[in-house]
């Protein structure tokens, strides 16, 4: 089985190298075949790390254009895949950098599914966050407030105690009890 996989990979590598070398010589048919061949590979590399399936197609197109622009840098003596992977990673990073730079000041609630699906890298993790938010909402207001200040906003217990006119011990006890309650609720 392993031998078969290895032989298939070797076959792909040789095929793509040969097609790329022919493309460098101006063979449009070979070039067309190469680009069509690599599209599933590009998508398989991109898909697991991206939130929005539409991005996969956008980046795939960018990668194809980049392959075209950098065809002269490919050496037929070397494997094709590492060369292609370097371009895919570069284009993916470039795309995500531009995307998040435009959106980095936006905030929303977890209920906003459209926003989450296009701005969160791992949207499947959003469900857990939503559960935590729901559990927090179910707590008495005072407990929720103290817990949020200490554990989410990062204030020290001393600062919170001063702000709420409580003793440090009382704040600590409340936060500890809230944490235990949340654990039970989320089990």
């Amino acid at each position, binding site marked *: 089985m392993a031998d078969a996989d290895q032989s298939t990979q070797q076959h792909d590598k040789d095929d793509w190298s040969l097609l790329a070398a022919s493309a460098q010589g101006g063979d449009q048919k070979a070039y*067309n075949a190469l680009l069509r061949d690599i599209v599933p590979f590009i998508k398989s590399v991109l898909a697991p790390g991206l939130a929005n399936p539409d991005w996969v197609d956008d980046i795939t*197109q960018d990668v*194809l254009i980049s392959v075209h622009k950098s065809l002269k*840098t490919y050496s037929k003596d070397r494997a094709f895949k590492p060369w292609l992977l*370097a371009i895919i990673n570069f284009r993916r990073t470039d795309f995500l950098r531009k995307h998040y730079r435009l959106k980095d000041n936006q905030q929303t609630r977890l209920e906003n599914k459209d926003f989450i699906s296009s701005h969160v890298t791992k949207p499947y993790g959003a469900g857990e966050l939503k559960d935590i938010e729901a559990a927090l909402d179910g707590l008495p207001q005072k407990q929720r407030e103290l817990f949020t200040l200490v554990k989410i906003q990062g204030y020290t217990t001393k600062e919170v105690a001063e702000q709420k006119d409580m003793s440090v011990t009382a704040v600590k006890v409340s936060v500890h009890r809230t944490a235990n309650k949340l654990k039970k609720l989320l089990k």
Partner: protein
Amino acid sequence: MEQRQTIDDVIDGLSGDLQPVSVMRHPLSRALPSAMLCALYVFVVSFAIGFRADISDKFDEPLFVTEVLLSVFIAVSAAMASSWLCVPDMRGQKWLLAAPAVLFACMSLIYMNMTFAQGYEVPHLEWHRCVYQGFYMVGLPLLAVLVMSRKGRTTHPFWMSLNNTLSVSMMGWVGLRFTCAADDVDHIFTYHFFPFVVVGFLLLLFARRIYRW
């Protein structure tokens, strides 16, 4: 389905536009001639400016010779790294990025040692002739290197900027050590080193724009 057609359109468009391409030469055969040309240019400019009077004596000093040799090695290794960086995957030679960095760290250690020994005091700041001469030495080679690098397709614009600056400025550094008689750390850092740092910083700042493709 619509997206799929778009990718098909892109593929058809790209393959329809295809013309035979001239394959990029091996990075080594691109790096070495350009490094040699840069060295020749710096030598000619240094000659035109005039070598320092004590240059033959300086070559008897092990520290000076070490410094010059290190600078040349840094320049050559950085030129090689930038040449390999012109290929998206660097043809598997990523270790080349470490060579100039390690050599530069060695040189920095030598200069840190000199700074501790001599002490450092910022001299009276002015447009010293060494600043102009430094730019005469590196200006044209840096422009040539930038144009050459843009012909490649780098996936590491910051490394490319860093290595281009290092390769040219280290040659300029050697040129300045050959022409300027001052050996004190204050002068060397302020008028030989700092202007190149500023140039390097600007290139790093605009790296993504310069090497966009």
